């Protein structure tokens, strides 16, 4: 029986046969009958990375295996959600080493996409903190791998988009924290020059990112608000917060109950939203203590915010440019976005640190993420942007992608040949492939 499956962007929608497994044995039982298979966790990648003719859902393979409370290492099965991990580790004084902007992803997805967070410039992406993983490859073998054992498999699986096999168990290091609160500093920047200066001034702060308004022109071109933060120490908390420093109450969740008609979201509403957001921050500089939830996962408090974009869905476009060409490239790209007026509800800017892995997205330089509701002309426009990104030596994030052309991909990921070699060794006959990997001819 086929199901209609889509990921977070609601585009594309695939006809897939989906099955779940709760043990290595039950996975291997299904492995032979299913080619063109990809693992899928909670479906929070945006496009077609976790779509295929056959999908192995990891959501029922979701048990905790070991938690070393003294040294801060956790081992769990691929289907465990980051939200579940936080519930377990935070009361013991630990936090995720790296977290993306949602906690509703699985740990398997975090490794396969080698996710990054607001601390990339200081602490790298998720895979840097992974000690050991196990992978079921196309021959049905369950292999343990790390930097010293089956090192090639480890290297190609971290960030490998599920193309080497199915990630089973993950052992990774946690981060010691004194509290679940974040000492947040917000700084307004009038334009692109200012915000880029702010990023370089704040490189020593653990977490940083900025909301950028893509619609303003002239002297306010690139006006932004930077959010920088550190885990709050006990002595920085108020008396009330000190009462439960590691046990934050979950806030009430709001749900967008249905797909919003697409006319609601036009240039005018986006402009209004951005203006309200910018002006909400009154002073140029402000400091506050907020919960980790508010700091890391502001959008998680609105369940199904993706429905804001209507049933046609949306594309998220995230690219990174090398540091040398970042300023020129951002001016060019933001200019084109502004002129085109296809809007962007959210635009996030961040400065990455060094990274040079096989298929992982980050590199030293600026990354920008924007949403585009699917509408007439969007695909053509993004094809145009791809060429600009490539021209400046940048690349597109696979986890967000649903439409990139293979030429762009092959010209922007320098270690593809090496990745292909390893992936073919463990996945010789395209046993594992996604709609994305077929589109981009990764294998």
């Amino acid at each position: 029986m086929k199901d209609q499956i889509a990921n977070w962007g609601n585009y594309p929608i695939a006809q897939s046969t989906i099955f779940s497994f709760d043990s290595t044995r039950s996975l291997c039982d299904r492995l032979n009958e299913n080619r063109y298979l990809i693992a899928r966790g909670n479906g929070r990648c945006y496009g077609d990375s976790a779509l295929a003719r056959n999908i192995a859902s990891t959501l029922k393979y979701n048990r905790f295996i070991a938690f070393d409370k003294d040294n801060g290492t956790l081992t769990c099965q691929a289907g465990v959600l980051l939200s579940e991990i936080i519930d377990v580790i935070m009361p013991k004084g630990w936090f995720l080493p790296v977290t993306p902007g949602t906690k509703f992803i699985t740990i398997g997805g975090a490794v396969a996409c080698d996710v990054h967070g607001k601390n990339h410039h200081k602490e790298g992406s998720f895979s840097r903190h992974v000690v050991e993983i196990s992978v079921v490859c196309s021959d049905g073998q369950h292999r343990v791998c790390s930097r010293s054992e089956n090192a090639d498999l480890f290297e190609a699986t971290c960030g490998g988009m599920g193309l080497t096999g199915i990630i089973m168990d993950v052992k990774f290091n946690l981060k010691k924290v004194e509290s679940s609160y974040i000492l947040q500093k917000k700084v307004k920047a009038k334009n692109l020059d200012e915000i880029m200066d702010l990023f370089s001034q704040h490189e020593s702060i653990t977490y940083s990112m900025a909301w950028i308004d893509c619609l303003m022109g002239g002297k306010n071109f690139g006006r932004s608000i930077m959010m920088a933060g550190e885990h709050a120490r006990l002595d920085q908390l108020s008396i009330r917060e000190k009462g439960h420093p590691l046990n934050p109450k979950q806030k009430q969740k709001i749900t967008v109950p249905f797909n919003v008609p697409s006319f609601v979201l036009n240039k005018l509403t986006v402009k209004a939203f951005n203006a309200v957001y910018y002006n909400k921050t009154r002073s140029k500089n402000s400091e506050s203590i907020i919960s980790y939830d508010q700091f890391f996962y502001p959008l998680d408090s609105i369940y199904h915010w993706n429905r804001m974009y209507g049933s046609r869905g949306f594309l998220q476009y995230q690219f990174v440019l090398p540091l040398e060409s970042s300023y020129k490239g951002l001016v060019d790209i933001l200019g084109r976005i502004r002129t085109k007026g296809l809007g962007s509800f959210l635009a996030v800017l961040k400065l990455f640190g060094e990274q040079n892995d096989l298929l992982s997205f980050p590199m030293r330089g600026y990354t920008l993420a924007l949403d585009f509701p699917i509408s007439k002309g969007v695909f053509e426009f993004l094809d145009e942007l791809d060429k600009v990104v490539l021209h400046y030596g940048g690349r597109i994030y696979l986890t967000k992608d649903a439409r990139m052309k293979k030429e762009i991909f092959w010209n922007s990921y320098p270690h593809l040949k090496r990745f292909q070699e390893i992936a073919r060794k463990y996945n010789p006959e395209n046993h594992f492939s996604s709609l994305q990997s077929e589109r981009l001819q990764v294998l």
Partner: protein
Amino acid sequence: MSSILLLGANSDVAVAVGVKYASKGYDIVLAGRRPDELETLKSDLEIRFGIMARVMLFDAENTSGHADFCNQLNPFPEKTFCVFGYLGNQNKAESDWDEANHIIQVNFTGALSIVSRIANRYELQKEGTIIGISSVAGERGRQSNYFYGSAKAGFTTYLSGLRNRLANSGVHVLTVKPGFIDTKMIHGVSTPKILTASPKQVAEAIFRADRKKKNVLYVLSSWRIIMIVIKLIPESIFKKLKL
């Protein structure tokens, strides 16, 4: 610390019940035929809920080992949840006594053997709760599953007698008749949605019924009505139905 023994801990309902009781702070004893498969459930319950869990080998059919099994329960759990079962193959059982016997050994003989030993212990200590999963299939024999149904009917009758005997000893006996459950047991067979409960629903219902000291629990009330109707049909008509 209170604890609960899950007999047949590999099943989906047992896992859901384990999660529910662990979330309320109970230590959990996981007993099943394939203990190695219970190790990740043990670690998961311990890490998520900060309780203690223990894995034990238990085979319902091996009744001669049941006394030993009980001796190894130390401390002895205050609650016992008897959830193992074997649906078997009715057609096969009609012509193959081994299959029929297997159904009886697991669902009836094995269940009575272990529950009786535990009940005696509870009677001595004047407290304890026994929760037994029986089946609506045991309420009236039908051609499609009467081996399983009659074994469960026997177990239902046993539990009601046991409840009667222990009522004055402070020991509570709860009989659960879940109806269809969305589990491994009926995997592949599609059942009507309104008559099918999820393992989590079953676990929630059991926890509430245990707390309220209910005697007989139909997880979905629709089943109580269905079974009343089914039992009202005169045998002369019932025997001609294709059920």
